């Protein structure tokens, strides 16, 4: 079996495992998995920019919120049909990525982090400023009737799970194919040594711009899916916390690995969920766990797996 076929087998097994979880796990955990899979789509978008291209953004909540609000406001406040509202959400995330990428890529390294953070803060403040429409911190709920797509009621727990799995699977397989493609390798080359890639004839600025566009749009799709499946849109999702989360998920799961984002979200979600049932100081537990992981698995969970067991892991 070649590395490529092993990699596809692994991804298909992972999808099958998640599908099997629906039949095995109690309802509560099925609900958690739906949420984790949607957030993993967001994390995969982040991973594309950070893990594969080497650009550390501190403002991805802006893209997540762009998709979420683009869809949520169109469907709930604008009264548009769900399908059209989804297209608007997608276009919003794409346009925001286009503008932010164009401006932020004039900077590098720490300056890039600061600029993306500032853009995200500007987005967050915009959501609060137009509180009469966005309902600010309080947010708004999307009517159950508006959460149906192709005749399927996505507010239903079962439909929600399968929709989340479908979105996650398509994104995961697309990501696996992308990182093995010429374009994916060129992104890795930029991450490894941008100057060297340029010396070989790669337009590294264009590559980074395309990466921002894809990453931002994918984060927006995550935001849109979250609003559609869980029926809530709020300013929290545009806050700095939601810019830091994907960084943590990807670091813990394994930056530059396809399955890392899912592992990272899953780990963080259950870490907080379980520790909060024992103590109010659950963030302390989370902090200690993060420290231990950083010390003993600096490449993240999937990164360590790749280093120790599966060198073919994409």
């Amino acid at each position, binding site marked *: 079996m070649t590395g490529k076929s092993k990699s596809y087998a692994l991804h298909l097994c992972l999808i099958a495992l998640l599908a099997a979880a629906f039949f095995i796990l109690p309802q509560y955990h099925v609900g958690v998995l739906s949420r984790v899979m949607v957030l993993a789509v967001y994390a995969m978008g982040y991973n594309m920019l950070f893990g594969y291209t080497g650009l550390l953004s501190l403002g991805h909540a802006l893209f997540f919120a762009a998709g979420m609000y683009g869809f949520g406001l169109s469907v709930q406040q604008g009264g548009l049909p769900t399908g059209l509202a989804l297209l608007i959400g997608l276009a919003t995330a794409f346009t925001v990525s286009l503008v932010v990428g164009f401006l932020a890529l004039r900077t590098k390294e720490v300056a890039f982090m600061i600029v993306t953070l500032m853009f995200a803060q500007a987005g967050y403040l915009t959501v609060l400023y137009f509180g009469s429409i966005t309902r600010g911190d309080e947010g708004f709920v999307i009517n159950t009737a508006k959460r149906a797509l192709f005749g399927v009621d996505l507010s239903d727990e079962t439909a929600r799970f399968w929709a989340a799995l479908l979105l996650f699977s398509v994104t995961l397989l697309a990501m696996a194919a992308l990182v093995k493609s010429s374009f994916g390798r060129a992104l890795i080359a930029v991450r490894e040594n941008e100057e060297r890639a340029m*010396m070989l004839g790669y*337009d590294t600025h264009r590559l980074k711009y395309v990466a921002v566009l894809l990453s931002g749009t994918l984060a927006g799709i995550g935001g849109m899916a979250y609003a559609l499946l869980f029926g809530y849109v709020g300013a929290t999702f545009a806050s700095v916390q939601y810019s830091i989360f994907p960084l943590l998920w990807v670091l813990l799961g394994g930056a530059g690995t396809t399955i890392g984002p899912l592992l990272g979200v899953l780990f963080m979600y259950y870490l907080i969920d379980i520790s909060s049932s024992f103590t109010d100081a659950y963030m302390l537990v989370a902090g200690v766990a993060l420290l231990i992981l950083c010390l003993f698995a600096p490449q993240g969970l999937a990164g360590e797996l790749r280093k120790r067991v599966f060198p073919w892991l994409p």
Partner: protein
Amino acid sequence: MLRIEDIHSGYGSVKVLFGINLEARPGEILCLLGRNGAGKTTVMKTIMGLLPLTQGRITLADTDIGALPAHEVPRHRIGYVPQGRRLFPELTVAENIEMGLMPCNSGKGTREKVLDMFPRLRERLSQQASTLSGGEQQMLAIARALCLEPKVLLLDEPTEGLQPSMVDLIRNVIVQMKAEGLAVILVEQRVDAVLSVADQVAFIENGRNAETLSAASLRSDPAKLHHYLGV
């Protein structure tokens, strides 16, 4: 083929080159010699568009390449092997080579030719580049530059820190490239290694051309080496 006329360049406000003139001809090896900090690597980086050209012209067969963005320069078939190899360490040998093939859409024939030149790389195609020995890494760096099917090859200290057998191997490849009609510009510290392969030797001193001499004349009269390099 590659003409460098009165080029001035530097790093930000620090000027390093103050008017360098060189010409690399097909089937010839032009060697740049000079003390540390003389500006040899800066010449290479300026040719590749990695440093701004503040004055002068760089032309490749009458095409002005001095004003091109850095990523356009290699597409004019100029291969560069920088000092320190600079591979993509996380990628395998095969992937590193593929990275060299893609920008100019070079085909399988080029890949095979390059691998025939470095059989040891063929044995290690699936190995991660960071795990190769120093000599193998240098082979890969040269192989990757050759994937562009270059007309001009720039090599910055390709034998630095290598064991003698590797030095010989790399030197043979450079001579082979010359025989195939490539124009080679070579920066080397090892004078003995240079004189045996070079056709022309250009001395660089404080960012200026000191003198360009034939290697044959230097071999017969090494006094200039003592003068410019103190060796």
